């Protein structure tokens, strides 16, 4: 285990920012902490680096208890959202800073700086000053500076938050390659779900200072255990249902029990249906999945490669009046996508959640 956090706690005044949080991260893993602003994710990262003192708990990095150590002694690499390069130093001096402190021999330092410049695709930029670089280039230099002295773990605090969308996508790929190549255990903090999906080996969803759920992107998306995760990651149609040993009942419709939901037997549950799993057809017979209701198309909106369709269920199913569907505009369903069209609504696949007593994420 490369990073072990046990029962971390941190308050600012009366406000609890990190609340009894425990987590283990494997060596070489790229772990993404995903949460809204104010969820405590950046504070957690700063606690690991030693930049924010903690109230309780322990932090272990590579089998070393670093809880009481100053940042200098933890051996982490940290990348800030606003680059934070040393602005009066050249690119080379920035990257070399940590090597100089560690008294690495000069020849080795030059070799290492060149190697990192190659990794971040900035060969030939050694003598530039930070203000002569674009935001994306500055952030790559910041990454190289944090990697130069081979840190035990790499901590990235919203590293792409200040960049244009296009640059962001390029940098993500660059980061993933570098992280894979060096095998450095990494925690990246972000509020960007797409970024989390693309980069992470595993994602930890953080909310009000608590780790709500941890898992691979696909498991968290397809088989979340909480309403918060279900609604925080992507869009969700939630339909109240009942589950017994063999079937899930949505109103009078019996559906087969999905995998890994035995714990919810004989409990009130909600059916989680992602909009892309909702199917529309002229008749029940034309649906490939299970029909659940008839409905009327209320609105159609452009959503990039897909179209988002809002359907009113007639009659409502267990109090649920509307469902959202995501459809490909060229599919056979296209001619149904006119407002007021009458359709059959079906679902291709679904997942079960315990009935929510807590409000879901917005």
């Amino acid at each position, binding site marked *: 285990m490369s990073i072990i956090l046990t029962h971390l706690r941190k308050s600012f005044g009366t406000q609890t920012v990190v609340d009894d949080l425990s987590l283990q991260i494997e060596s070489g893993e790229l772990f993404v902490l995903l949460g809204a602003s104010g969820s405590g994710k950046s504070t957690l990262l700063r606690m690991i*680096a*030693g*930049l924010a003192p903690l109230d309780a708990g322990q932090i272990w990095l590579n089998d070393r208890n670093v809880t009481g150590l*100053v*940042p*200098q002694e*933890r*051996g*982490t*690499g*940290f990348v*800030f959202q*606003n680059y*934070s*390069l*040393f*602005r*009066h130093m050249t690119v080379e001096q920035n990257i070399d*800073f*940590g090597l100089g*402190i*560690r008294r690495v021999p000069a020849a080795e330092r030059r070799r290492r700086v060149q190697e990192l410049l190659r990794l971040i695709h900035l060969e030939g930029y050694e003598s530039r*000053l930070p*203000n002569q670089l674009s935001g994306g280039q500055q952030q790559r230099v*910041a990454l190289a*500076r*944090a990697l130069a*002295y081979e840190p035990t773990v790499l901590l990235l605090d919203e590293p792409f938050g200040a960049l244009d969308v296009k640059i962001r996508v390029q940098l993500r790929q660059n980061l993933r390659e570098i992280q894979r190549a060096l095998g450095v255990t990494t925690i990246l903090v972000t509020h960007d779900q797409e970024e989390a999906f693309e980069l992470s080996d595993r994602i930890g969803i953080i909310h009000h200072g608590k780790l709500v759920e941890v898992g691979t992107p696909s498991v968290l998306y397809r088989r979340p255990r909480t309403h918060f995760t279900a609604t925080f990651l992507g869009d969700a149609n939630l339909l109240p249902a009942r589950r017994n040993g063999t079937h899930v009942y949505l109103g009078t419709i019996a559906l087969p029990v999905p995998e890994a939901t035995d714990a919810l037997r004989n409990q009130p549950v909600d059916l989680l249906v992602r909009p892309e799993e909702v199917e529309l057809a002229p008749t029940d017979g034309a649906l490939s999945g299970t029909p659940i209701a008839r409905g009327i198309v209320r609105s159609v909106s452009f959503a990039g490669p897909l179209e988002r369709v809002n359907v009113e269920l007639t009659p409502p199913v267990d109090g649920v009046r509307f469902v959202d569907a995501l459809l490909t505009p060229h599919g056979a369903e296209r001619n149904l996508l006119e407002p007021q069209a009458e359709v059959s609504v079906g679902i291709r696949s679904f997942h079960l959640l315990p009935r929510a007593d807590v409000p879901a994420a917005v």
Partner: protein
Amino acid sequence: MVRERPRSLLPLVIVGIAVGYALLLLIAPLVAIVQNALADGLQPVIDTLTEPNVVHALEITFAMTVGAVIINTVFGLITAWVLVRQRFLGKTILNTLVDIPFVFSPVIAGYALIVLFGRNGWLAPSLIPIVFALPGILLAKTFVSLPFVTREVGPVLETLEPEPEQAAYVIGASQWKTFRAIIFPEIWPGLLYGIVLTLARALGEFGAVAVVSGGIEGRTETATMFVFRALSDRNDAAAYSVSLLLGLIAVFVLVALRLVRRGMKSSHRKG
């Protein structure tokens, strides 16, 4: 049809007032000094400036000024750091105290030093004399030029982002190394500006120094006091000559200030 507004005379008048005011109050005295000092050629100036009393006055003026600059640079930097970075009881009071030399009349400051360090003063020295001696001059010059470094460095320290420092700590730099490598280059232009202002103020100080030093000719008489005495003695040539030298130094300092300011602006743009 585009109609041109009738040309207003107002801007011309305003510019005229500003320029005239500057010429009358700032340039005219300088010109007068230069003119009078050089009225009989360069020789009287050279004669005056090589006179032993004048040489001595200039020597102690420069030596005590440099002393005041060194003291105020070190303590001004520490004060600025403490006021911006530390939280402690009485911080507001300290912050206000720093400005006392700005509002105190230098003569009163000089008198206060006599009360404090004079023969029957609270802190009357037992070994070396302070009042009517060089240490008194140093104290007076230090007192009147105290706020500048603190007031120039403080605002720069306040605007520094915390992240580069934190980055340095995480990378492994000690606090001292971080100060030298990360913080000092940022505050350097402000510090230099403060030092130049301190220098100018300490060099030209008259009131406080006159009171505390006694102005003993050839012993505790500084350059500005020499000028004052020469004028009283109707020794105009000598007064003008020393004034010319001090004036030239002031102009040089002014130019240096402009250069430093420009440096500050361009380093600010980089950010």
